């Protein structure tokens, strides 16, 4: 057997992050006294360095390596950069929070880095196996992070729930993969696509496999009917971890959807579109309705996240109209733009929760935001930006995200979908407005000044809020980046 040395160059960032994870593990074992600061600093430096490596190894065309297990393309690179960014931001937000609760341990950063690596593998996989490995790496690290506050019963319960349901979803995904393999004889995405295109695959087995794959993707995105874990995990996990779950994994799940559904199973688009349609409508309806009833802001944001992911699916399903692929790029890039905007908004919203929390106090009820305008007009305005942006009101980025997805849906002639989405958005606006209401219209209950949060959290949160407004005024750059990144990969 010939052994060919693979081309390591496209995977330089993954290799670097993997090595650094080991370095941090060893360093924090041997340098116990300074381990916490060291692990944090090294993790952040690793993420920054990985970003540089990704930028420098970026190539215009699609490259395959490791026997076609690995693919390097612009979409992957772009998503990886966003993943570094959102992980780094979540770590900055979360550090003070973890410190206040005595769970600021080096292992946390190690897990975060392993999770990042898992997501990187997911977005660059060109084959079912690395895709699954990446997914499991991400998920296992996340389960441990959710349970990180081990004294807390709720965190442990959330982690258990997440683990059981997550393993179940992984099982579904694996089962689906095995069926697709059985039908097409290939685990590589292009091979699968080729086999389906040549009509060499057993249709029945294939469609069964598709159902399982879609279920797995839906679980990872956290959409109805695979959403049960979302509110409990969001609420139970320490807020710093909730923020991690709510941001980067959505991007990885988006990549999962693109690679599996569009790369491998594009010829089955008619089938998976119908499934996604049901799922998207159910998510938008249930997410928005259930969010209204929540008193806990983390739970509310969890349900709102479900409905936002429904919008991402709307973008994904509007790509092919009666066999016409003309709209594909437009629709998929709108979904990507939506996912990226959501990550920004979600980071900022949980950042606000962290800002208001302090040692021994979790600002997790909506009422804890009461009178924020009196306590800090600046951060009240930031939270207002986030809320209006999530509600899809201009001039904030959420408006353009909704506009581009709705545009794709209307272009695909799914008017009824657009109407459902819009009507539910109005209902959704109610709970966002309620947060603005408690901040601006109610008198503060807690009048202590917001001094607890460290300076970097305040700076980052301000930058995050302003970015939401700035992207709402000038969305073009991000929109065309998304379109450009996808264009190369379609």
């Amino acid at each position, binding site marked *: 057997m010939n052994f060919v040395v693979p081309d390591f160059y496209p995977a330089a960032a993954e290799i670097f992050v993997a090595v650094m994870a080991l370095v941090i593990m060893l360093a924090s074992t041997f340098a116990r006294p300074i381990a916490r600061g060291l692990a944090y600093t090294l993790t952040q430096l690793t993420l920054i360095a990985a970003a540089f490596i990704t930028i420098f190894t970026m190539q215009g065309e699609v490259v395959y390596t490791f026997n076609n297990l690995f693919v390097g393309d612009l979409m992957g690179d772009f998503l990886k950069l966003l993943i570094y960014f959102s992980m780094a931001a979540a770590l900055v937000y979360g550090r003070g929070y973890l410190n206040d609760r005595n769970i600021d341990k080096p292992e946390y950063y190690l897990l975060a880095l392993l999770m990042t690596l898992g997501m990187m593998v997911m977005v660059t996989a060109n084959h079912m196996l690395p895709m699954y490995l990446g997914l499991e790496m991400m998920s296992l690290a996340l389960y441990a992070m959710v349970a990180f506050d081990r004294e807390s019963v709720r965190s442990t319960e959330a982690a258990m729930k997440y683990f059981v349901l997550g393993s179940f979803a992984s099982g579904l995904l694996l089962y689906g993969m095995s069926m697709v393999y059985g039908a097409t004889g290939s685990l590589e995405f292009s091979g699968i696509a080729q086999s389906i295109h040549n009509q060499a695959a057993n249709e029945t087995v294939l469609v069964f496999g598709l159902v399982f794959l879609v279920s797995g993707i839906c679980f990872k995105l956290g959409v109805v009917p695979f959403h049960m874990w979302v509110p409990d995990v969001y609420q139970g996990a320490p807020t710093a971890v909730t923020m991690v779950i709510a941001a980067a994994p959505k991007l990885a799940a988006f990549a999962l959807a693109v690679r599996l559904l569009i790369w491998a199973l594009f010829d089955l688009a008619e089938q998976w579109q119908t499934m996604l349609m049901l799922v998207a409508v159910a998510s938008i309806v249930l997410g928005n309705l259930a969010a209204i009833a929540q008193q806990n802001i983390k739970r509310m944001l969890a349900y709102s996240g479900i409905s936002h992911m429904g919008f991402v699916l709307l973008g994904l399903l509007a790509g092919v109209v009666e066999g016409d692929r003309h709209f594909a790029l437009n629709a998929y890039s709108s979904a990507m733009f939506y996912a990226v905007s959501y990550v920004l908004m979600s980071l900022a919203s949980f950042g606000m929760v962290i800002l208001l929390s302090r040692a021994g106090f979790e600002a997790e009820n909506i009422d804890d935001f009461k009178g924020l305008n009196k306590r800090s007009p600046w951060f009240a305005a930031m939270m207002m930006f986030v809320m209006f942006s999530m509600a899809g009101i201009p*001039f904030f980025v959420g*408006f*353009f995200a909704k506009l581009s997805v709705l*545009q794709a849906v209307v272009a695909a002639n799914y008017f009824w979908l657009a109407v459902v989405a819009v009507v539910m958005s109005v209902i959704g606006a109610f709970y966002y*407005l309620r947060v*603005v*209401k408690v901040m601006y*219209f109610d008198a503060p209950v807690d009048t202590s000044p917001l001094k607890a949060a460290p300076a970097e959290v305040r700076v980052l949160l301000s930058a995050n809020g302003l970015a939401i407004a700035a992207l709402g005024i000038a969305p073009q750059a991000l929109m065309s980046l998304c379109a450009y990144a996808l264009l190369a990969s379609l």
Partner: protein
Amino acid sequence: MTDIPFLSLAIWVPIIGGLLVLATGSDRNAPLARMLALAVAIAGFAVTIPLYTGFDPGTSAMQFQELSSWVPRFNINYHLGVDGISVLFVLLNAFITIIVVVAGWQVIQDKVGQYMAAFLIMSGLMNGIFSALDGVLFYVFFEASLIPLYLIIGVWGGPNRVYAAIKFFLYTLFGSLLMLIALLYLFMESGGSFSILDWHQVPLAIQPQILVFLAFLIAFGVKVPMWPVHTWLPDAHVEAPTGGSVVLAAIALKLGAYGFLRFSLPIVPDAAQQLAPYVIALSLIAVIYIGFVALVQTDMKKLVAYSSIAHMGFVTLGFFMFNTLGIEGALIQMISHGFVSGAMFLCIGVLYDRMHSREIADYGGVVHRMPKFATFFMLFAMANAGLPGTSGFVGEFMVVLGAVEYNFWIAFAAATTIIVGAAYTLWMYKRVVFGKVTNPHVAELEDINGREFAFLLVLALCVLGMGLYPFPFAEVMHASVDELLRHVAVSKL
């Protein structure tokens, strides 16, 4: 024409000025915030004056156009321009902003900077609505203007303000999101253009026309507001602070009516013609039924709010008869209503600041203590009732004449408003101002001070001036209205 972008200035001077006012911070700097806000409001009005002086009434084309690309991905442009229909509203809006800033001078003592900033930013956004020629730009301003008004009602409003603010927001949002789908549909049908002027030329079959028309009808009908989606307005008016009510009545209600002229009539003319009888019916219900509803109100602000709905019913009635008198009369009515309803709310505000009650029953004999005020209030009440010589008469009279041309019985029904309107306004005036002083608090009232005198005087001059010599207003809109009617008469099928 000069190259100075007056429309951009009209939009961005108040918005950026508003942000500066916001930067003055806490209430320690309240005097500074007030002075700065006044300066910004005056500057904002000053930059709109060239729009009138430089306006060419001879053409129906868009003037003072500005065009630059905004989001090329969806071909969204920053495209501004005004014609005879919209230019007056930009001026009216900038003018009312000054009045509102002055009116809130002493009354507002809490979060002064934020209050003033909200009004200034809203003023800029509403100028944007009136001058946008791009569908998305219009929509963006249309929705963004909800935010400041929501905060104004919710933060500085009355006891039931939360309910009113949220109701206001959700009603309008619902309508405008349906409009968004219509805009996206037109974007698709026009082959990828969001330009409103392009849409005027897009041919459409009758069924999509009707659907688009209905989407616009809901969006603008809620905003006008038309019966039966008017219920948010009395709540919003009653709970809003005086300044909020003034802006709401004088400007915000005009946005919906303006939308009919800019979108519904020219883009889907056949559907508009076909569905006109229904819109006319709704308008007549607003005029007659809401007029009677106004009659039984015991709260002054609610009474004026219902009277606003009735007056706006007149406006939509005028639009959908498709004749020059009707549309021009409706436009004049809109501007006049801006002055008159604004003034009515300010008068009620003057009373409320002293007595902290809006109940008609709490008053009586105000004239004995406040003769100057009673005189102004008299004038505005007469204008609200449509007395000849005041601005309220001109528009109503033109619409009724237009209606006679269209159908005598519709004109007859509409004309009853002149009786009902006089009844509810003057009866309210009588109960508040005349009679014996029964409430001891009324006996302690002080007449209006110099500041209040000033803004009421300015509005009184506007009401009288427009009533006696409406020509400058009608002249500006003539060419554009003719062009609009020509356009509506051509089928797009």
